[in-house]
């Protein structure tokens, strides 16, 4: 089963206990992440991208966060049912994670070397000297100059871009099969962003791992990803190969997202089209389709029935009652 996906999430439901009662942050999400490929997850702030990632890593804030249902099949094993001890092996060893905030992601009171060596000591070796040697090697790998000096330094002595390289080094240290990167470049300067993304692509080519890349930047998706999942309000709106999503967006929300990115070259639009309206808060989500209050295609049915997932093409799925009209409408506007 060499081509079985490394990660398959089925019907994941994740909830938080809040003072105002239980809120479902991720509601029946399913997707696959294939070996050696990059899956992008895109959507507006608050749509459940991070919660999905934290559910997979079983890192939900305790005791509020809970997986209510579904399966997280990683390499054939259901992580939703794994024991804490089994997760210690998975985290850092089989799945690495890169977080958004390089400024706070590292422990301010430990040296870079100690924090990086810790990963090796947890998964690879018991020998401290060996772990430190591997740490220096890994720092060199992620393009940090004079790593022998850097291992003795503390996070506050490094720039944001350098720290993110250290975080990447920690995530990739044990050559995991999957790396989950939750907005790895959002907090960085544009030039540094490009460097970090290049680095991730280069390391993926070398190490052959799969990447699950969370972002709300479709430009990043276009550049980095093979497949995309578009999320809205804790559910999947549309998913499929990157070309299919960009060339044949079948969900009104995806279309809105694509229209909102500035086009360089081509005919220049005088103003960016952004999607009007706001995402409803999780606790007062309407029945039916969650995009209804912002959707130009919305009809009565959308306010009653939750749209089922339908196949647009093999591997390309959409959750919209009127996706055919959406696709036809897109064709019309493209010719006009």
């Amino acid at each position, binding site marked *: 089963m060499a081509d079985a996906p490394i990660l398959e999430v089925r019907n994941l439901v994740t909830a938080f206990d809040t003072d105002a009662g239980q809120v479902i942050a991720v509601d029946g999400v399913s997707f696959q992440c294939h070996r050696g490929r990059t899956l992008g997850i895109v959507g507006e702030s608050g749509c459940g991208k991070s919660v999905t990632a934290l559910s997979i890593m079983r890192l939900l804030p305790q005791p509020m966060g809970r997986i209510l249902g579904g399966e997280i099949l990683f390499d054939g094993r259901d992580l939703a049912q794994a024991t804490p001890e089994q997760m210690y092996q998975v985290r850092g060893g089989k799945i690495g994670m890169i977080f958004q905030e390089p400024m706070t992601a590292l422990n301010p009171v430990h040296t870079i070397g100690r924090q990086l060596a810790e990963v090796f000591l947890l998964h690879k070796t018991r020998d401290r000297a060996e772990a430190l040697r591997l740490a220096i090697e890994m720092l060199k790998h992620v393009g940090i100059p004079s790593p022998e000096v850097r291992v003795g330094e503390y996070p*506050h002595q490094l720039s944001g871009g350098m720290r993110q390289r250290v975080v990447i080094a920690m995530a990739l240290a044990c050559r995991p099969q999957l790396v989950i990167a939750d907005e790895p470049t959002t907090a960085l300067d544009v030039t540094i962003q490009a460097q970090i993304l290049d680095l991730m692509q280069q390391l993926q080519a070398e190490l052959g791992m799969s990447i699950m890349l969370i972002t709300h930047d479709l430009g990043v998706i276009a550049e980095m990803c093979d497949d995309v999942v578009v999320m809205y309000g804790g559910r999947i709106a549309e998913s499929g190969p990157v070309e299919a999503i960009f060339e044949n967006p079948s969900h009104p929300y995806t279309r809105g997202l694509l229209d909102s990115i500035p086009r360089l070259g081509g005919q220049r639009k005088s103003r960016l089209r952004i999607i009007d309206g706001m995402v409803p808060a999780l606790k007062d989500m309407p029945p039916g389709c969650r995009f209804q209050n912002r959707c130009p295609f919305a009809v009565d049915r959308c306010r009653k029935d939750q749209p089922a997932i339908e196949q647009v093409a093999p591997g390309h799925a959409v959750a919209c009652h009127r996706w055919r009209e959406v696709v036809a409408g897109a064709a019309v506007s493209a010719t006009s």
Partner: protein
Amino acid sequence: MRDYFLRRLLLIPPTFIGVTLLVFAITRFVPGGPLERAIMEARTSETRRGGDMGRSSTSEEQLADLKAYYGLDKPIPVAYVQWLGKVVRCDLGTSHRFNEPVRDLITQRLPVSLVYGGITLALTYGVCIPLGIAKAIRHRTGFDNATSALIFFGYAVPGYALGAILIVFLAARAEWFPMSGFVGENFSDLSIWGKVVDLAHHAVLPLVCYAITSFAFLTMLMKNQLMDNLAADFVRTAVAKGVSFKTAVLRHALRNSLIPLATHLGASLTVFVGGSYLIEFIFDINGMGLLGVQSIFDRDYPSVMGVLVVSSLVLLTGNVISDMLIALIDPRVRFK
């Protein structure tokens, strides 16, 4: 690091001079000072004894001594420099309340305060840190709530009030503990072991009162700091590397949480030397607190200045020690 340490040490003399100069000047302006008192006493004794010339000449002598010691005939700066010169030579003058060298008064009382202060410090930090950790880990459990109730009771009741209650119930009624004093009357006849037991027996109640003053504050500080740090990004990074919850707490969250406690150590040292006037008063302990406050009431300025010299020196060195501790824990301070 060494520069930092040196800079902190070099700050001690100017701070010391500032504090003592201020109090020195105040003693010259506040009415009812030593000279006025001596003159008044001389007058009353003169009228009482009906012109007994011998008595009045002693007062005259005392007066001259006082004038010479304080340099009352000279301007403040000159007088202060003279006084400082004597202090450097370990001459703190003579207390006119006790008619004893102030140096002797202090050497009698300082050990008492140091014993109580030292044990109080060890006790509060030794209990508050583990208790705070346990409370943070078991946040909102029965254990946490029960200890919180106790802690807030302790917070609401001042040390001296608790002292009064303890004396009434545990010393006077139940006779489990002696009512007062640092040691029993037959202390010098006891064997070494007997001395230790006697000391401890006398110390229990006052120590409880001393400890309660900062107990609630330190415990809650520890708990809140640890909870904040447990939710910090870098702890999540550590867990994502595969460390267990226990390691995350002990290796990653704890050290960061100790920084504010180390900061507070400097302030905690006040009790170390200063003692507490009210607690010493209630338990009839001859410590520095009692000496200092009573000297102020009696305008016994040599004693006031003597106590000030000792306590400010201890406090200033204490602050340097606590700064050193912070620098040890927190590299961001060390490499500034």
